[in-house]
């Protein structure tokens, strides 16, 4: 029982802190690219501002409009958050520092990540607002469309590693000497990152929020702490998907040439560094790109990403059997 509690606490702490670090990174990246001095100087060079942000949302009134479906409306943010936190359970920070090393780790991660869709859809549906509804439906369509390339991109890795356990996948990469992104899964990695960006609903795939069209999409009616939960979950999702991507494709907690017997010490640092690098790329994309249109997004998923990932699986399988 104590062990379970410790694990849950560890999970929540890492995921939440990861989200806060990514928030800082996003805001500082934005102000750096936009030449806004504010977040680079205020409050210990901008590092304690997330605290102010959280305090602001907590003390704000939690407005629940009269027309909404109250229980659904209230629980939707929790749904999104839980699916994000649970996702981190299978990510190994070293061979032993992992909450649950499941046999079917990849399968679990992909299954849990689609749970958040329900939260987003119910948030949009229960808000009794047409903008929210459209945002929720866009989110549902988008998440379903991009779940497929996400899974198919991972299949290549699974074939190559011959295991679905995330620790097993990393061990295989250590055994190979190079991470999978160098060892033949570069296309899979690119597809995974594009699909993951769509899953996170970040620019250029942020139509469910689309503030110039839908005000704030499925979050329009939320305020106070419930909005904060959505907001934090967004960054948590970004942090965790980046962590999964670096585990699957970039060699996880290990970098070549480092001694494997010390992996328990440097593992977490290595993984978080890789995650942060991927996160920074996403930040740079977010603040420099416009938004796609809904139909262009669907075309990209169904006409380009899915065929490409199928070809990727085929090539990987042929290489695996042939050599």
């Amino acid at each position, binding site marked *: 029982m104590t062990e379970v509690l410790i694990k849950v606490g560890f999970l929540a702490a890492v995921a939440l802190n990861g989200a806060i670090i990514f928030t800082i990174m996003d805001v500082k990246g934005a102000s750096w690219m*936009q*030449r806004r001095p504010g977040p680079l100087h205020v409050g210990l060079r901008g590092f304690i501002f997330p605290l102010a942000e959280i305090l602001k949302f907590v003390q704000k009134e939690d407005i629940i409009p009269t027309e909404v479906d109250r229980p659904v409306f209230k629980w939707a943010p929790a749904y999104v958050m839980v699916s994000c936190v649970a996702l981190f359970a299978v990510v190994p920070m070293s061979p032993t520092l992992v909450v649950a090393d499941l046999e079917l780790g990849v399968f679990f991660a992909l299954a849990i990540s689609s749970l958040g869709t329900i939260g987003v859809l119910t948030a949009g549906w229960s808000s009794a607002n047409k903008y929210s509804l*459209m945002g929720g439906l866009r989110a549902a369509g988008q998440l379903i469309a991009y779940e497929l390339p996400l899974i198919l991109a991972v299949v290549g890795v699974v074939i190559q590693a011959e295991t679905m356990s995330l620790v097993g996948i990393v061990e295989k990469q250590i055994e190979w000497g190079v991470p999978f992104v160098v060892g033949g899964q570069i296309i899979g990695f690119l597809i995974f990152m594009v699909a993951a960006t769509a899953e996170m609903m970040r620019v250029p795939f942020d139509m469910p929020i689309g503030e110039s069209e839908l005000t704030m999409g499925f979050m329009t009616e939320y305020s106070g702490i419930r909005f904060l939960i959505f907001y934090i979950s967004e960054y948590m999702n970004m942090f965790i998907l980046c962590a999964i991507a670096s585990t699957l494709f970039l060699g996880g907690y290990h970098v070549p040439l480092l001694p494997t017997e010390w992996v328990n010490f440097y593992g977490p640092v290595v993984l978080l560094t890789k995650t942060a690098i991927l996160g920074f790329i996403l930040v740079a994309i977010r603040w420099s790109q416009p938004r796609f249109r809904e139909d262009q997004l669907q075309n990209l998923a169904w006409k380009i990403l899915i065929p490409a990932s199928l070809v990727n699986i085929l090539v990987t399988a042929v290489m695996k059997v042939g050599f």
Partner: protein
Amino acid sequence: MVNALDPQNINSFSEASVSVEIETEDMTLNIGPQHPSTHGVLRLVAKVDGEKVHDVKPVLGYMHRGYEKLAEVRTYPQITTLVNRIDWVAGFSNEIPFITGAERLMEIEVPERAKHIRLILTEMARISSHFVFNGAYALEVGALTPIFYAMEDRERVLDLIESVTGGRFHPNFNRIGGVKPAAGAGPTTKKDIQDLPAGFYRDTKVAMQKVIEAADQFQNLIGGNEVFKKRTKNVGVLTAETAEAFGVSGPILRASGVKSDLRTQTDYLPYDQFEYDIPVGENGDCYDRWDVRVKEMVESAKIVLQAIDSMPSGPLQAKVPKVIKVPKGRTYVRAENPKGEMGYYIVSDGGLGPYRLKVRTASFSNISILPNMLEGALLPDLIAIMGSLDFVLGDVDR
């Protein structure tokens, strides 16, 4: 009662189930008056089927301030205060056609120097208006960064306008017969003739060079972006015939391929002394409308640079009576404003103020084309098309 399990009835049942069509009802979506992308308080009542827009009805009047009626109880010098609030993004250029109209009725010859200063400030107002468009349009198609660059670059131009007129948005700088002695050029005494502030020419040259650089940067950063091209090319195509039929003017009309510019067609300011191009689009889509405006910024900067080099000396004011009374008569003056054609119809009965003032604003005519253009568009395109028309609600409702 019909038994569904009876084999005899199966055929009729299956047919019935096939012939049932899903009937969907259009959803009425109220866009505005409070919406991030309607540039103020425009309200669009849209009938949407999912993402597809079927019918759009713009509802105006949320910002009606009654300036035309108000002008009837004001004297002529007071009216410039009202009119530069019509299109607040380019405040200075609103004053020009009105003041020119009054001067024509009074048959006053404005000194060349005053005309040049007016021209320079009008072009600066055009540049600042197009900067706002550039930033806001990128924001509407989802790019969050360009608006900060646009606002920073616009600030240089606004600083220059402020150094001459004392106001950033509402200069109230024109006087009948010329321009107001410039602000910031020393103490105001009757004997001193105040002029442009010290260092104005130098600062303007630097700022205009920066404008040309900024336009180049926008062409690369926004215009060269694949996602931006995907969002704007072949979206909201407006043919030249339709545009002319709806009375559309300004950059929107030129983007559709019509080379119509009142700066060359009328003589309200001495534009014929300078060399500049009139950028014209080819397809009349959102991208062209954006492109034409960016190119226009460069041309305006070139005009300002030429005007600075050929600035004539002389007085800032023509001789005018102490009490301004405009003789009986009527006139219509039109001018090329950043948003399009702006015209003032002034009817004078010989009194201190106009008997009637009718303002023809560009934005009002330009958004009349919205229902026509938005028919069958997707919801994100609705925002992209609306943004590309670059209207200001003060200019629509007056």
